[in-house]
């Protein structure tokens, strides 16, 4: 599982305060903790700072990469902010995210075209939020097709089929996981990723629901997740589900996690 650590997001109070105070060590601590917990990418988001987003996003990338070799997931729809972050980024970054919304697509495509970057492709278009497998596949076909045509390699694409809350429609869980299965079958070599906590909006015991949903999505082929890697129960769930899905040779990761005290 490719873990994208979600904690460095300015919509969280502590991060907002650290950015405003330009407190590099506070940001670096959150980055280091996530890497130690197993993050492969460190997401950076400064979206709440209208006008200052490029400057802050660049500052976040610089400071995160001072303490870790891991690449960042640059979390913004604004090409200027992304370019500012990329100007200092070391290694192969991830762009979070492009979608089929016309404006966003046209602005972000030139950034990723022909480059060795990972990109999250969110199944959303100007027609609104997709609900069914067919809605999502229609967007995914067009979006992935467009990326491939613009020389983004299939291995660099992470399709996010868009999680919607189960509380408002009983089919939203199953339609999502069935889309994962179809995407993996349709585009060999592609990745999938999602932030999945939206599934439990409006329901109690959200963590329990999120973990169960993660297990089901992994069974269908999900191999990327935007999560809090410091959530030990979620990490344990991922490790067990991956072993059960046949992706853990000799259960080595499962055993390693056991010895590290995850279970």
């Amino acid at each position, binding site marked *: 599982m490719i873990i994208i650590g979600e904690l460095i997001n300015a*919509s969280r109070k502590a991060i907002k305060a650290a950015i405003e105070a330009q407190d590099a060590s506070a940001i670096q601590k959150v980055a280091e903790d996530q890497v130690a917990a197993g993050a492969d990418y460190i997401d950076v988001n400064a979206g709440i700072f209208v006008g200052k987003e490029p400057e802050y996003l660049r500052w976040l990338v610089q400071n995160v990469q001072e303490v870790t070799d891991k690449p960042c997931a640059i979390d913004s729809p604004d090409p200027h902010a992304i370019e500012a972050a990329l100007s200092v980024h070391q290694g192969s970054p991830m762009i979070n995210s492009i979608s089929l*919304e016309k404006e966003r697509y046209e602005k972000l495509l030139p950034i990723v075209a022909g480059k060795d970057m990972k990109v999250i492709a969110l199944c959303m278009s100007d027609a*609104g939020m997709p609900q069914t497998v067919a809605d999502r596949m229609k967007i995914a076909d067009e979006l992935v097709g467009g990326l491939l045509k613009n020389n983004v390699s299939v291995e660099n694409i992470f399709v996010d089929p868009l999680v919607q809350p189960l509380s*408002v429609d009983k089919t939203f869980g199953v339609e999502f996981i069935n889309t994962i299965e179809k995407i993996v079958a349709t585009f060999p070599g592609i990745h999938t990723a999602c932030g999945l906590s939206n599934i439990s909006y*409006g*329901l109690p015991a959200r963590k329990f629901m999120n973990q169960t949903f993660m297990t089901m999505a992994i069974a269908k082929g999900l191999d990327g997740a935007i999560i809090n890697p410091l959530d030990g129960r979620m990490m344990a769930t991922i490790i067990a589900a991956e072993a059960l899905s046949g992706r853990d040779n000799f259960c080595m990761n499962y055993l390693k996690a056991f010895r590290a005290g995850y279970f």
Partner: protein
Amino acid sequence: MTVKEIFDAVLAFDEATVTGKTQAELDGGTDIDAILNDGLISAMDEVGERFSSGELFVPEMLMAAQAMKAGLAILKPHLSAGQSQSKGVVVIGTVKGDLHDIGKNLVSMMMEGAGFEVVDLGVDVESEAFVKTAAEKNAQVIALSALLTTTMPSMESTVKAVKEAGMATRTIIGGAPVTQAFADQIGADGYSADAPGAVKLVKELVA
């Protein structure tokens, strides 16, 4: 007595009983206003209270609203002009650039459940559309939703457009990244963190 049973059936999310009892009360000559206000609408008020207190969850709020609407459908053909007038008109939508509709739909549904006439403009709504529709419908309140930090500025421009149009219509805002502080900053007339809260807010604003 049995208007209370309609109230209870809404709170039990029991659509069949709500329609059965509503029809029976109507046939028995019970005052329509009593069925509507003391049965259906006050039940939705109670649902809102229980949701806000954490006792009920979103799916239960949806089921209650569905049951309430089924009862309302029975009463509607019998509501004469002037009788059981709507409590006010609310124009609602998700602001320009934002396609999220779930929160907006929950608010819209609870407003209807409280007896307001709701004009739902959908998602990605231009500020001019809010202003134009509110003027046409003589709306008391415009309710704006946004789920992205990147679309919150569209709330500001819409609130500004309403003020510039010189309308008396009040504006309220909500959505995951939105706060009371942001409402104050852009000069909106109110903010709520959840759907029942938004209903309360509108009641205060139209009172």
